[in-house]
């Protein structure tokens, strides 16, 4: 007998109790709404059930589940991108980004001075609320590329494969996402702090 197969399967109720909230938070940091995050958590546990002997040892349980969730998230992002192909997102110009520069290519309004030090922000819960709003305001393909690259550190070639785009497309998407995010955060956080 395969020793892995004969290992006792983790009871699903216990898995849900131990990891449900953590997986939910992980998913919610990467999708736009709670219902989608809940669905992804459910799919993760169901997949874990199907492969319930696929991990060894208590310590790796969370890592194992997060790994499954990451696959589900990739599927989800890809599907969302394929739902509405390219239009307004990649082939055409990005009006918001183009509006930041004048005809001659200079800033319409130069970057403002920020009071807060971005380096200290990661500890502020309110900052992440504003960040989530700005992230959700991104066109979906930009958001998908940015999330995979910046949040999950997915290698560029994998993102291109997932989203069905070329590396040049990816750099354009990331460039636009960064410009939009920065502008949105400047407006809603650095200049005018939103009370929580």
């Amino acid at each position: 007998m395969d020793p892995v197969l004969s290992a006792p399967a983790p009871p699903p109720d216990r898995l849900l109790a131990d990891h449900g909230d953590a997986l939910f938070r992980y998913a919610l940091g990467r999708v736009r709404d709670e219902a989608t995050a809940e669905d992804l958590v459910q799919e993760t546990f169901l997949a874990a059930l199907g492969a319930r002997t696929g991990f060894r040892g208590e310590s790796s349980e969370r890592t194992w589940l997060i790994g499954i969730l990451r696959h589900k998230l990739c599927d989800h992002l890809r599907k969302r991108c394929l739902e509405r192909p390219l239009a307004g997102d990649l082939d055409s110009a990005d009006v918001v980004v183009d509006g930041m520069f004048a005809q001659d290519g200079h800033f319409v309004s130069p970057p403002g001075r920020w009071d807060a030090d971005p380096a200290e922000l990661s500890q502020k819960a309110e900052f992440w609320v504003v960040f989530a709003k700005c992230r959700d305001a991104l066109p979906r393909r930009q958001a998908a590329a940015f999330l995979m690259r910046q949040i999950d550190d997915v290698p560029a070639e994998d993102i291109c494969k997932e989203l069905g785009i070329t590396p040049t497309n990816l750099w354009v998407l990331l460039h636009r996402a960064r410009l939009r995010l920065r502008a949105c955060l400047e407006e809603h956080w650095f200049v005018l702090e939103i009370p929580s």
Partner: protein
Amino acid sequence: MSAIFACREAVRLANQSLDHPLTLIQRIELRTHLAMCQACRVYRRQSRALSRTIARGAQAGLLVPVTVELSPAARGRIAQALRQRLTTGDQKDV
């Protein structure tokens, strides 16, 4: 050159450098522009700092506050789905 190489291009290179290495020529172009342009220096500093902050926050699991939990309804639905799958799965095994 400076008419062609405006802030739009400098910002593009500054952003690109966060995601993959620039070529030598691109690095020189960017550095030349930054030396002359206060706005782009500010942009690059802020953009880099934000990028680091976001990466650090994501790594530390700060994107969503730890007080956020699955709703009882969602937890119930998931538990139900798991039980259902277990039952049908067991039948298949038999």
